[in-house]
């Protein structure tokens, strides 16, 4: 392949997989998921019984021009529903943001604090999944890593807290707690990493199993060993206030601290820098898009797998630490499914760290809005779970939207729209896409290591 031709193909791919397209696909997925959610709400509304219909589907009973004439139409069709989808989605999205469109909007409202609090945790779990994804590893175990990190943070901080006191304690304990969470989460993430690297065990299965194991073992530890004797619930004794994230701007009772959000955004930038500017990040990305080439270029594949899984687990552990130090103030069993939402966040963000905060905000809104919906309507809160699945499903099929797009706008001058160029997985499976998009060459052997046919079908899967 000539240099020119290769450049041309690279440009094509760059255009096809551009960030704009990604954002558009994510948006379209959201809209489509909401549309199907509407149908589900309507169907559910037909199956429930209620005194008065909350939503009526009918047609106008008169047409005409106001003031001139008016023709009445007999009512032919009328269908009542117990749930009003408009209210549901209004509460879900606007309610979570404390009604930004109404005149008396208070940006420091409690509901916004809840939304941002959920967002903060989701940023960490999203980063965790996204990082592993970039290395070509499907880490479904963020939930387990988070649970392990959360419990470890709570226990170790409880143990250390009496040793330090006062201002020193406040300054030291939070970073220490975060460190502990990261360490334990990282260790729990390293297990499936090592199993994959050295025993070839499929990480999708091992991480799911490790989630079940983490939940079971933590339940045992909290209910039998570290239980707060004064409490009915399976929880530890409360952590001292010094050891928690101090509430800034928002009141303390919402469990949100701006400091934690700032820390989350700093983690986003750090990870983006790590992935795009450091040699370790480079190893991760090349192993993700083309493991053979990476290995040929001098990357130790096994070490990279373990290292990226450890880092991914550490981010999951951080999510757990933040959950304990900011939201709970102790550890209680039954940690919400932030880890699974992290998968959605990462996929929606195209596994790009810089996209993670936006996707996390969307899911923070969905999570926080769920409670508002529950308060305002009778629609079961599990609806949000369905929406989450639908969004993933649609984001997974960019080709669907491209086909739609091609039907609406025919391709110009036969520009080849290559199948599967903009991958849902950030180019994980597609040979040289990501390399071209980044405008870089795979390192080693004078930059010509992968000069051969760069396209290796399924290179990322084996």
């Amino acid at each position, binding site marked *: 392949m000539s240099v020119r031709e290769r450049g041309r193909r690279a440009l094509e791919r760059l255009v096809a997989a551009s960030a704009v397209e990604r954002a558009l696909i994510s948006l379209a997925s959201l809209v489509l998921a909401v549309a199907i959610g509407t149908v589900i709400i309507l169907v559910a509304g037909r199956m429930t019984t209620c005194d008065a219909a909350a939503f009526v589907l009918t047609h106008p009973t008169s047409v005409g021009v106001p003031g001139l004439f008016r023709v009445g139409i007999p009512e032919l069709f009328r269908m009542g529903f117990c749930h009003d989808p408009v209210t549901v989605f209004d509460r879900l999205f606007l309610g979570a943001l404390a009604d930004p469109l109404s005149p008396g909007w208070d940006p420091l409202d409690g509901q916004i604090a809840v939304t941002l609090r959920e967002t903060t945790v989701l940023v960490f779990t999203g980063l965790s999944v996204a990082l592993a994804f970039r290395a070509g590893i499907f880490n479904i175990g963020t939930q387990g890593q988070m649970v392990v990190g959360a419990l470890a943070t709570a226990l170790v901080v409880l143990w250390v807290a009496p040793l330090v006191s006062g201002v020193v304690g406040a300054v030291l304990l939070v970073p220490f707690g975060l460190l502990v969470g990261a360490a334990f989460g990282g260790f729990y993430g390293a297990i499936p990493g090592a199993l994959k690297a050295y*025993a070839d065990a499929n990480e999708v299965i091992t991480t799911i199993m490790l989630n079940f194991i983490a939940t079971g073992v933590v339940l045992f530890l909290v209910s039998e060993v570290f239980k707060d004797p004064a409490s009915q619930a399976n929880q530890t004794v409360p952590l001292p206030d010094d050891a928690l994230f101090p509430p800034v701007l928002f009141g303390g009772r919402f469990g949100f601290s701006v400091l934690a959000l700032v820390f989350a955004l700093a983690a986003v930038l750090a990870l983006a820098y790590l992935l795009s500017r450091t040699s370790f990040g480079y190893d991760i990305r090349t192993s993700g898009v083309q493991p053979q080439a990476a290995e040929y270029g001098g990357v130790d594949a096994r070490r990279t797998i373990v290292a990226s899984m450890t880092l991914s687990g550490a981010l999951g552990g951080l999510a757990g630490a933040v959950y304990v130090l900011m939201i709970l103030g102790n550890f209680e069993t039954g940690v919400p499914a932030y880890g699974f939402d992290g998968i959605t966040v990462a996929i929606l963000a195209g596994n790009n760290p810089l996209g993670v905060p936006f996707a996390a905000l969307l899911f923070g809104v969905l999570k926080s809005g769920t409670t508002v919906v529950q308060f305002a309507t009778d629609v*079961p809160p599990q609806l949000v779970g369905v929406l989450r*699945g639908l969004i993933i*499903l649609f984001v997974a099929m960019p080709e669907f939207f491209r086909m739609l797009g091609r039907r609406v706008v025919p391709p110009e001058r036969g520009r080849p729209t290559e199948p599967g160029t903009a991958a849902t997985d950030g180019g994980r499976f597609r040979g040289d896409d990501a390399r071209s998009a980044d405008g870089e060459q795979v390192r080693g052997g004078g930059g010509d290591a992968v000069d051969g046919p760069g396209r290796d079908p399924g290179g990322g899967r084996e």
Partner: protein
Amino acid sequence: MSTLERVRRRGADLDLGRRGQAAVASGVAFAAFTALGLLFPGTIAGTLVDVIFSAGTLSSALRLSVPIVLAALGGIFAEKSGVINIGLEGLLIISAFGAIYATDLTGNLWVGFGAGVVASTLLAALFAVVCIEFRADQIIAGLAVWLIALGLAPFASQVIYGAPNTTSVRTPPSAADVVLGLPVVGDVLRVLVSAATGFGAAVVTVATGLRNATGGVPLAGLLVEAVVTVAGAVHYVVVVVLVGALVEANVVVYLTFLMVALSWYGLYRTQFGRWVRASGENPRALDTAGVDVSRVRYAAVLLSGVLSGMGGSALSLTLGQFTGNGPTMVNGKGFIAIVAYLFGNYNPVGAFLSTLLFAGLDALQIVLQLRDVGVPNQLIRVTPFVMVIVVLALVGRTRIPSAAGEHYESGEE
């Protein structure tokens, strides 16, 4: 096909390699453990052996393996055809709910069972369209199938029953009830069962007589004692454990046996099975031979929906209720099914045997939770999951069909 070739092919079907070694190793370990338990009945090993060799454990292992085996069979067809179906868990969830709902509505178990299968097949069809038509990433789409079902089933239950758990419906009969009710076959079976019981009583009588007669003779007494012990053990295992478990077993257990046999036959002995395997290994060749790869893959994924649907329906109907809290009543069975068929090397019979291993462990932990063995229940509960990881680490890499996970684009467009 020559006889030699046929024999060689059969050998290839049965060749287990590293997996076989692992199986033999665990067999030896199990035998050693059993001996330990028999020699020292008072220890934990003794309790475990006691539990393992009870009819209750085997029958609950069979019951627990039903949804896993059926989902695994479905997963085999899908993955052999080149579509990795990681959404088996979701298919089980949706069919488990659908079966209960339809049974509750109609009062007919068969309609309920069928409705579960239909629900699962519809979801599988959605997955198939998304993967084959719209070239979605199969892993992500499979994950989406799981998450959709995980949300939808409790949502529907909440809408219809006002709680994540449904009301209870009646359960399907055990095989013995069905067969004993039949006119002639039932009588024959009754005679057989009483014959078996009578044989057992006769063995005991003869043994006691022999023992009494040879009590004073040193060597003969020992010999007779040994023979009596072995005969007693064989009688116990065959009559009490096997017959007991099989007679007690629900009809869905027999359905599972049937499906394992049919799947094996379908995959290795029919034209469709050859197409499925070719579609996963070398879709280009299949295409060249004039077979539509997409259609084969659609059929295989739909089949995985049908089989998983049977599994989910059987799961909820035998318990008479769908429970939708947390990870729902399916609770990871779909993922264990994936491990089971990987461990069974995509062979339906292998998948069945490895499922029996996991389900046996699960049955064991349920029994152990009831007895006090000094280990907390929360920890006993995680043993099947630990076992899955250990198995995966030992078996390691499984050779997945070479075109699995990839979209296939026919040359002619």
